[in-house]
């Protein structure tokens, strides 16, 4: 198979579905998804600044920390990267792209996922240190910060560095969209090989084409829409896409393609993660997949009582009551050091057990080969956590919004707010779903790791290579069970205050 050959022959193209397909491909199709979210963002910022500063009664905190997170993980598992597709932060980005003349490329040294990993680490740590979930004001500022960062970076650089290299939300979505059932591909590879303009990546009016093409072709020249269409913001070339990583599902490629050759195909959710060369053999990309699974555990650990005992012990041992420092240590060890040591250790052990001959980059290659297997168990952990918040608080948005309307004198829904609306399911009932999600993710990770072991080491030695990863996934599962079996606390800040002051 040549490197340019698409790896999928999808049975279904979502862009050809009646109505929805037409909507997705429409010139302003993305705006139909973005504008509602832009309005919602404006509403959250407004209520975050002016509303009651109690998290459970404010649209900013309820929508951001209950609904957004629940919908995102659900959409990733059932369809694809729908949040990036509808991302309101990309609207000022588009404006900036039109304002910027000939921006520079993002610095080469930063064109990787390390900034995104740092951003994820920072936001999860700040979430704990600043009690972000409890502050509508802070939540509103975070939303504003996203808009400003997205706009500023797009103004300065001629690609979409914020989406591709920085945005923590995007990094999370990219990582777990590798498990999604939809992916961009092309219908006919030959069409792309003879395409002159490569509009899917260049756009039809790009001031600075990324792929320079000659003007000679055996087909009639393509006549573009005079208004022009943007090419791929994250510089993915449609016929070479083998992974959802870095795809914001903006569908600009489909709109820009003058041959109508781009598809949004249905695929097996495990196809990308088990296929060879789907993801580059790079430390940064693969460490993102590994680290996110561990971050899921650390994030949930911050909500259960044992974290207080640990903090107390650490405070005594280190002789400090600096909460930020103790949390920084826990997050550094749990989110960065442990995943690095354990996953690299597992790769080293797999190589040692199977007697892989010493060759340059053998460790990195094994690490990168098995990293996709961390995606299902990570997705299971995040879904169990975010799903819990969503299930127990999904309907709270109704009284909170009703209250918001009353605050503004709108009484069409009556003057009595029904604050009793809350859970879709009882927390105990959802515990069964959590177990299914955790075990399901664990089993899929095992299946993937086994497939990868056979692919990389051959059937005879696969079992030995598989063993360290099987043990590592078991440890992650047990850690998750321990955390999710603890009484969930919403959320322990008073305990921390009492502990330190």
């Amino acid at each position: 198979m040549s490197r340019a050959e698409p790896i999928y022959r999808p049975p279904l193209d979502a862009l050809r579905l009646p109505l929805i397909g037409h909507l997705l491909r429409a010139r302003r199709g993305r705006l139909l998804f973005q504008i509602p979210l832009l309005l919602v963002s404006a509403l959250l910022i407004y209520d975050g600044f002016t509303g009651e500063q109690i998290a459970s009664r404010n649209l900013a905190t309820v929508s951001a920390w209950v609904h957004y997170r629940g919908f995102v993980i659900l959409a990733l598992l059932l369809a694809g990267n729908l949040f990036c597709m509808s991302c309101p932060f990309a609207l000022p980005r588009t404006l900036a792209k039109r304002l910027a003349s000939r921006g520079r490329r993002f610095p080469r040294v930063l064109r990787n996922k390390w900034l995104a990993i740092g951003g994820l680490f920072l936001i999860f740590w700040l979430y704990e240190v600043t009690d972000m979930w409890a502050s509508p004001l802070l939540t509103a500022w975070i939303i504003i910060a996203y808009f400003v960062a997205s706009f500023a970076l797009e103004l300065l650089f001629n690609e979409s560095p914020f989406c591709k290299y920085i945005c923590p939300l995007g990094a999370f979505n990219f990582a777990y969209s590798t498990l999604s059932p939809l992916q961009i591909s092309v219908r006919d590879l030959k069409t792309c090989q003879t395409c002159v303009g490569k509009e899917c990546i260049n756009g039809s009016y790009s001031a600075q084409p990324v792929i320079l093409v000659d003007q000679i072709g055996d087909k009639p020249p393509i006549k573009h829409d005079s208004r022009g269409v943007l090419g791929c913001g994250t510089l993915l070339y449609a016929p070479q896409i083998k992974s959802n990583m870095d795809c914001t599902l903006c569908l600009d490629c489909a709109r820009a393609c003058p041959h109508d050759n781009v598809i949004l195909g249905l695929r097996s959710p495990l196809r990308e993660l088990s296929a060879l060369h789907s993801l580059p053999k790079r430390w940064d990309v693969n460490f993102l997949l590994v680290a996110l699974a561990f971050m899921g555990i650390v994030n949930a650990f911050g909500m259960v009582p044992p974290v207080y005992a640990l903090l107390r012990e650490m405070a005594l041992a280190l002789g400090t009551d600096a909460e930020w420092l103790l949390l920084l240590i826990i997050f550094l060890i749990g989110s960065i050091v442990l995943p690095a040591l354990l996953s690299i250790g597992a790769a080293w052990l797999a190589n040692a057990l199977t007697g892989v001959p010493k060759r340059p980059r053998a460790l990195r290659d094994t690490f990168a080969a098995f990293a996709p297997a961390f995606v299902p168990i990570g997705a299971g952990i995040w879904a169990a956590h975010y799903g819990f918040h969503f299930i127990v608080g999904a309907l709270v948005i109704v009284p909170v919004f009703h209250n918001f309307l009353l605050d503004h004198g709108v009484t069409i829904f009556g003057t009595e707010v029904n604050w009793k609306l809350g859970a879709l399911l009882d927390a105990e009932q959802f515990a069964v779903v959590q177990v299914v999600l955790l075990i399901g993710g664990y089993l899929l990770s095992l299946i993937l790791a086994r497939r990868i072991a056979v692919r990389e080491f051959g059937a005879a030695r696969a079992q030995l290579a598989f063993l360290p990863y099987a043990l590592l996934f078991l440890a992650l599962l047990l850690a998750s069970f321990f955390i999710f079996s603890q009484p969930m606390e919403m959320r322990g800040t008073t305990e921390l205050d009492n502990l330190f002051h």
Partner: protein
Amino acid sequence: MKHFLRALLILCALSLVGCRQSAQPTPTPDPDIQLEWLNSDKPLRVGMDALVFTLKNARAEPIRGAVIEVRGDMTHAGMVPVDGKAEGGTEDGRYVVPFEWTMSGDWIVTVRATLPDGRTTQRRYDVQVRSQ
């Protein structure tokens, strides 16, 4: 037309900021009313509880016939708030509010007292509730 629509949108947004009114305005604490939560220092556990409040005037005389409303909100978004209420009070100005702590974690307890003469006062307590 475009400029007009933009201007209209901005005006709407600005006017929205100006027209917000709190549905439950926070009353200025009346210095003549002393509202205390008597058993706030005991460890709080998930389940049914009885919150005891006292209401006195500036001369430390008990106030009877008032209404005490308690609202409990968890600090984390997405949790259903809990309400409690007591009316009348005892001879010594005590009000016992039946209240259920539905989950362990941090709570913001807002207590509002409305006196027979219409005067009100409000206090907020940040507390932690532990599992059984």
